[in-house]
């Protein structure tokens, strides 16, 4: 009996940890690929992305964010034309600081070929996958970039493809060309200011809304958006999968509940004869009821100890040694801008551990009400003769 409940509890803890892990990874991937958890823009920029609508005093803003524990990466954007091999395509120029970007997103790890931007190679640019295909670019090829610079002149320069990205999202795949920020500034004649600051929060202890508010307090004149506001579709998809996972958990928990109920019923009905004798000796009904309740409670406690003792170490193990599904999913797959990680990590949160134990207790305590009441109200003579 204890063993069965213990096993059920153990399975529930492990399952909850796996689910938490999956949701966490998905949520992480939704932000670490490109958007960052939060973005800061000049107030009108998102409505009308103009080259001149910039965050000024960006050094001070970046320092202030970092002083408060936030990792922040500045970004510059522009539109232009890229030409190679006698064809040309409209592009989105993206100037970034690779050292800071590394702390906010993990785009540097999603290269199909070549290398990510590096300060030692100012002529090197990294291009989106479909753009590379459209222009027939491979690593090492020359690329001419033309745009209208900030001073109205015709910006044009020759670069070399240093890397080609895996699929990130529609916009980057089709038109993204990444430059070192100082190279971008030189080409576009934009000595200062940035268009966007992407931010990663240091921990998950606060809610997304709290962090958003905190960042907003740090930069009162700028527009702060979290990834849920930036990517509402992705947020919806994640919410939907959270609900469906909850439903799965409810089903699992119900199965465990029925198992426990069955155990409890058996435990009482097997001893009807004994309860009859006890009753005949003059023990009042409430004492029988509490006897069964205490007995069950102790069983659940032991079962919980077993569940925790087995469930937590196993989940912790899979937290560092993920299930490798590489064989099942392609390594560069992504859906709606979320990278699909073929490594499935557990995540041992307080919720993942406490919830199954609480459910176990509640189900056990509820399921003894019926058999315990029945035992308490037994007619001694009938019970003694019950076989």
């Amino acid at each position, binding site marked *: 009996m204890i063993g069965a409940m213990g096993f059920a509890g153990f399975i529930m803890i492990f399952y909850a940890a796996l689910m938490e892990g999956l949701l966490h990874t998905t949520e992480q991937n939704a932000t670490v690929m490109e958007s960052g958890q939060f973005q800061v823009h000049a107030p009108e920029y998102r409505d009308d992305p103009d080259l001149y609508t910039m965050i000024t005093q960006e050094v001070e803003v970046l320092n202030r964010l970092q002083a408060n524990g936030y990792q922040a990466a500045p970004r510059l954007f522009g539109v232009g*034309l890229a030409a190679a091999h006698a064809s040309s395509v409209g592009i989105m120029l993206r100037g970034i600081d690779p050292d800071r970007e590394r702390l906010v997103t993990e785009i540097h790890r999603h290269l199909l070929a070549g290398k990510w931007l590096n300060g030692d190679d100012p002529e090197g640019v990294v291009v989106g996958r479909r753009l590379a295909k459209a222009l027939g670019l491979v690593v090492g090829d020359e690329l001419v970039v033309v745009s209208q610079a*900030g*001073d109205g002149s015709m910006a044009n320069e020759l670069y070399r493809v240093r890397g080609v990205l895996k699929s990130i999202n529609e916009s980057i795949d089709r038109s993204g060309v990444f430059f070192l920020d100082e190279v971008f500034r030189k080409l576009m004649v934009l000595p200062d200011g940035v268009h966007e600051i992407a931010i990663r929060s240091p921990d998950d202890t606060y809610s997304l809304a709290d962090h958003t508010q905190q960042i907003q307090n740090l930069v009162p004149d700028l527009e702060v958006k979290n990834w849920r506001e930036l990517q509402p579709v992705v947020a919806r998809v994640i919410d939907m999968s959270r609900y469906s996972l909850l439903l799965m958990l409810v089903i699992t928990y119900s199965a465990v509940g029925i198992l426990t109920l069955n155990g409890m019923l058996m435990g009482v009905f097997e001893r009807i004869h004994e309860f009859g004798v006890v009753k005949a000796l003059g023990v009042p009904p409430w004492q029988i009821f509490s006897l069964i309740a205490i007995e069950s409670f102790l069983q659940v406690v032991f079962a919980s100890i077993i569940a925790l003792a087995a469930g937590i170490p196993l989940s912790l193990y899979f937290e560092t040694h993920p299930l490798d599904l590489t064989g099942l999913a392609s390594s560069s797959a992504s859906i709606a801008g979320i990278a699909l990680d073929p490594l499935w990590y557990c995540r041992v949160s307080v919720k993942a551990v406490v919830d199954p134990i609480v459910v176990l207790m509640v189900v056990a305590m509820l399921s003894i009400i019926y058999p315990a009441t029945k035992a308490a109200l037994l007619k001694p003579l009938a019970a003694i003769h019950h076989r």
Partner: protein
Amino acid sequence: MNLKLNHVAFLLFLMVVLSLTWASMSFATTTDDEVRARLILDLIDDLWRADSSESTVTMRVVTANYRRTVTMQNWTLGKNYSLVRIVSPQKEKGTATLKSGNVIYTYLPKTDRTIRLTSGMMMGSWMGSHFTNDDLVKESRMADDYIPRLGFEGDREGRSILEFILEPKPEAPVVWGRVVITVLAESYLPLVSLYYDEDLSLVRTVTFSDFVEMGGRTLPARLRVVPTEEPDEYTELIYEDIRFGVLVPESFFSLQQLRRQ
């Protein structure tokens, strides 16, 4: 059978009546005013254009974010060919734009590359001015693409003027919903053109001034374009010098010529 014949006769009658009405209507629309308007519009369209021309133009652009002055040399041949090469500033010297039919090529001396502009770039600014690349390509003739009517004739601001209101022909490949052009009554030289979008709100104003003798004609040497949305911004074209009827062969408007400094 009888009925059928009646039918055919009636149809024939109807067709004759309809075609007569249509004919009289089209005669009615081609008034003397319109004929005069078309003549004047042709004159204006040909003002800076002859079979061929060679000119030096200074372009001054003032926007909220930058000011720039560019001097360029410009060659045209007929309606289809033009070549513009920047003479100054030094940073952009040699940058050239070739228009050949509906295609625009840009030569960039810094990278020694020639780029054909994609359709996506056509609405982009040309050389940082208030003109789009599309403005360069679509050199429509007003008399061909619009139906003109005389809107005003008389004195305005002490000058005797004519004002024509141009509505685009339904099938004309033009972007404007209406153009209003004011010309001097005695010389037919343009003073102001107002360009309206399809919702008939004013988009840009072009004013013509500094009427001088140049290349054997009297011309406004200065054109100023002011976008209605940004009334403090403008692009000004100042003709330093223009010659008409110069001998430029068609081969001049080639990609090889584009690269020549």
